[in-house]
């Protein structure tokens, strides 16, 4: 079949956030972010308060990316719950989760519906706990998607967990690391770095095992892994909180600073040599040790690779699409290796991407927030970059414009191994750099007349 463009003449339209209709959204909804964060808590079953479609769709979407079990419960509203409230559904759901999953904690987030009918979710939970001591603990976060997307849902959930679980007390020799909605591979790498530094750390949320687990002989109702409530309780006693995310203002770590005086160190996602230097220096300082030899060696190899490959990326133009913090960090990396970020786009509306890009030394890129893929596609068609760094949802644009796509972030559901995509640290940067260079090389090789088999 001939290739038919999905949207006619994208050049006709300029993205404008006041547009009444969204075409091919670049966001998903807030409870999805909440579910992801809850997956980083040990023994937690996420529960979505509202009609069950939301929970089922969120499961399906997360499964398509992580390819792992994703048991997410719903309070299954009916027509009468929308009129009389969902209290009895919530009570039934929590009791049923106790009976089936025996969770340490239920992670409750809300749909647009529950938020709109004015449910007093917090009050209901309080009553439930008072009435039945056998029920598991419930942590609650409000996630109306008409106010924010998965990015906000994720960080609000981290903040809610910290607010509801962390306790103060005597300082401990440990740090909190809030890495953001990164991949399981990223979390694993950060854990390895923390271990190499000998730095006791609460790395949260940690879904590296729950969302990238081994093959099993028996189904685990709740996948093993994640940070325990006991450990989270000690987060208020850490020496500091190191929080990654260029656009977070102030971000969930502020909860601990306000409640327990834990100083908050805000850093960008460690992608690129310089950003990784800053992040690892902060961790090494917290540990009171120099950067371990193994990391220094990784850094050395990365810079050596930059030298080998710089020619093939220099002055090449790139569009970056994704979660705001990831998009900003990737644009910073692109600029660091001599590429020209011409477009940095996100479906989220933080209002801070332009400023964050400036801090990364990225100048001249067009910045789109609260954008949809139709609008992003229109700008890509006009700007004609050499490469797109983005999720699978950028594929239709990449295909229509014949621009190669390097898949990063979320969702990556047209390939396997999304959870294994490493973005962070010298090692993640190395992987990204190789893939960017090789993608550009492959593209010119495939489209050249001669097709040399060597560089």
């Amino acid at each position: 079949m001939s290739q038919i463009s999905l949207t006619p003449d994208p050049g006709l339209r300029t993205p404008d956030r006041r547009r009444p209709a969204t075409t091919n959204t670049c966001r998903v909804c807030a409870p999805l972010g909440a579910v992801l964060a809850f997956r980083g808590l040990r023994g937690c079953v996420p529960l979505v308060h509202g009609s069950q479609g939301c929970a089922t769709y969120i499961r399906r979407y997360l499964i398509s990316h992580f390819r792992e079990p994703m048991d997410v419960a719903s309070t299954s509203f009916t027509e009468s719950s929308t009129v009389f409230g969902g209290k009895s559904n919530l009570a039934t759901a929590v009791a049923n989760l106790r009976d089936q999953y025996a969770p340490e904690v239920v992670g409750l987030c809300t749909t647009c519906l529950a938020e709109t009918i004015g449910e007093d979710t917090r009050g209901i939970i309080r009553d439930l706990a008072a009435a039945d001591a056998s029920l598991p603990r419930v942590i609650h976060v409000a996630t109306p998607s008409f106010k924010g997307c998965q990015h906000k849902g994720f960080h609000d959930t981290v903040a809610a967990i910290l607010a509801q679980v962390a306790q103060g007390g005597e300082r401990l020799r440990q740090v909190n690391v809030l890495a953001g909605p990164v991949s399981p591979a990223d979390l694993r790498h950060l854990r390895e770095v923390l271990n190499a530094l000998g730095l006791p750390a609460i790395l949260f949320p940690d879904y590296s095992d729950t969302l990238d687990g081994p093959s099993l002989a028996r189904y685990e109702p709740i996948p093993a892994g994640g940070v325990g409530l006991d450990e989270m309780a000690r987060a208020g006693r850490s020496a500091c909180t190191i929080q990654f995310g260029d656009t977070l203002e102030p971000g969930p770590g502020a909860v601990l600073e306000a409640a327990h005086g834990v100083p908050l160190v805000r850093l960008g996602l460690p992608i690129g040599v310089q950003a990784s230097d800053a992040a690892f220096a902060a961790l090494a300082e917290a540990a009171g040790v120099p950067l371990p030899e193994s990391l220094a060696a990784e850094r050395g190899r990365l810079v050596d690779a930059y030298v080998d490959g710089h020619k093939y990326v220099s002055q090449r133009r790139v569009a970056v699409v994704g979660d705001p913090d990831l998009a900003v960090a990737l644009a910073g990396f692109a600029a660091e290796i001599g590429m020209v970020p011409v477009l940095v786009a996100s479906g989220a509306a933080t209002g801070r991407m332009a400023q964050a890009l400036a801090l990364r030394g990225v100048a001249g890129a067009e910045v789109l927030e609260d954008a949809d893929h139709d609008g992003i596609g229109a700008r890509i068609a006009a700007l004609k970059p050499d490469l797109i760094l983005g999720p699978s949802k950028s594929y239709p644009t990449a295909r229509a414009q014949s621009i190669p796509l390097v898949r990063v972030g979320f969702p990556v559901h047209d390939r396997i191994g999304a959870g294994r995509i490493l973005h962070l640290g010298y090692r993640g940067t190395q992987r990204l750099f190789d893939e960017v260079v090789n993608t550009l090389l492959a593209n010119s090789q495939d489209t050249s007349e001669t097709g040399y088999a060597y560089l």
Partner: protein
Amino acid sequence: MLDARKSQVITAGDARAIVCDRPSVAGSVTQRACTFCGSRVVLYPIGDALHLVHGPVGCAAYTWDIRGALSSGMQLHRNSFNTDIRENEVIFGGEKKLARALRELIPIHKPKAAFVYATCLTGVIGDDVEAVCRGATAEFGIPVIPVQSEGFRGTKKHGYSAACAALAQLIDSGDTTGIGPFSVNILGDFNIAGEIWTIKSYLQRMGLEVVASMTGDGRVDDIRRAHGAKLNIVQCAGSMTSLAKMMQEKYGIPYVQVSFFGLEDCASALYEVAKHFADLAMLERTRALVREETAAVLPEMARLRKDLEGKVAALYVGGAFKAFSLVKALRQLGMRVAMAGTQTGAQQDYEHLKELCDADTILADDSNPLEMAAWLAARDVDLFIGGVKERPVAYKLGIGFCDHNHERKIGLAGFVGMAAFAREVHATVTSPIWKLVPRRQRPGCSNTEGTP
């Protein structure tokens, strides 16, 4: 298993009837979605209609380009159009934004019709979607049809009816001149991986004219004249029988319920259609077609069957009709079915499944991952058939899996489809990786747990 769910699980040999057709138990992690989902999947494949989801971002995001429903022309359906309701509309209502969205999108995309899907949020804030649609119909001169698909209204089945009601508004608005006596509509095939093209080619070889396909590779103008056809062929009966009944009452068009999955079912589907027209030449053509098509795939299937004989399968699908066909198709491949479950089966469907299955086959209505995982392990299943949400349950346990849902990229309908199904099952079940998974590395497998 939850006490509240025990009546929804039986074995085929049980004397008691299953309990089904009721809302999911809160906290049970149902595999079902919502009313909106039902409507969305039925109408989705109409490629020259604008599908506008009136609600917040998620409902639209999660249904963007998720079905492998192919179109031979316009591909508007592969976009996700959304009014993207924000706080402002939650407070002040979303009707104005909906009207503006239609005003923006219709001139750009020039669809032949538009469907506006109501979701939970726009239902609860009380938007009068119908009124906005009426206004837009007058303004743009194309049918702008509201779909009453608020998620909380009920299960997916309610969504099917809402979609049928929307289609009913289109039917009988087109000119039927030129439609011959040997004419049919196809209802309930969604052209996943081009399946309707296979089915259409069979019908055409039989000498039939297909007026409208609803909704696979569907076209608004065809649907508008669907009332001129002489027979409705209903596949995936769960979703579209209500429309067929309506057309029978209103236009006197009879319908047949068939399935094009599996050699047996596909052949009897074609015969039933031919019988309806009571035309000897057509019957002869049908016989020849079935003979030819079956002969083309049987040798390969016989070869594949050798490796599959005695293997054990389980299935969990949306509608019961697919389950019937799959049980038969698996049997044709020499496989036993240890468990068959559906999201939306009705009482009589489960009774029919009882007849089709072995006495110890587990039958489950509206199941969940924990239940299914227990049965898969207990029955030492080799293959699980379901959709994306069922896949990780199988894969985590190191069990083969085949997608028989909307997202698959392999056509499984028709005689050629059965061969493709057999090849996929074979490639899956005979993969050498299964001997490496933990459940195959332990001596023996318990065969007692998990039986209800």
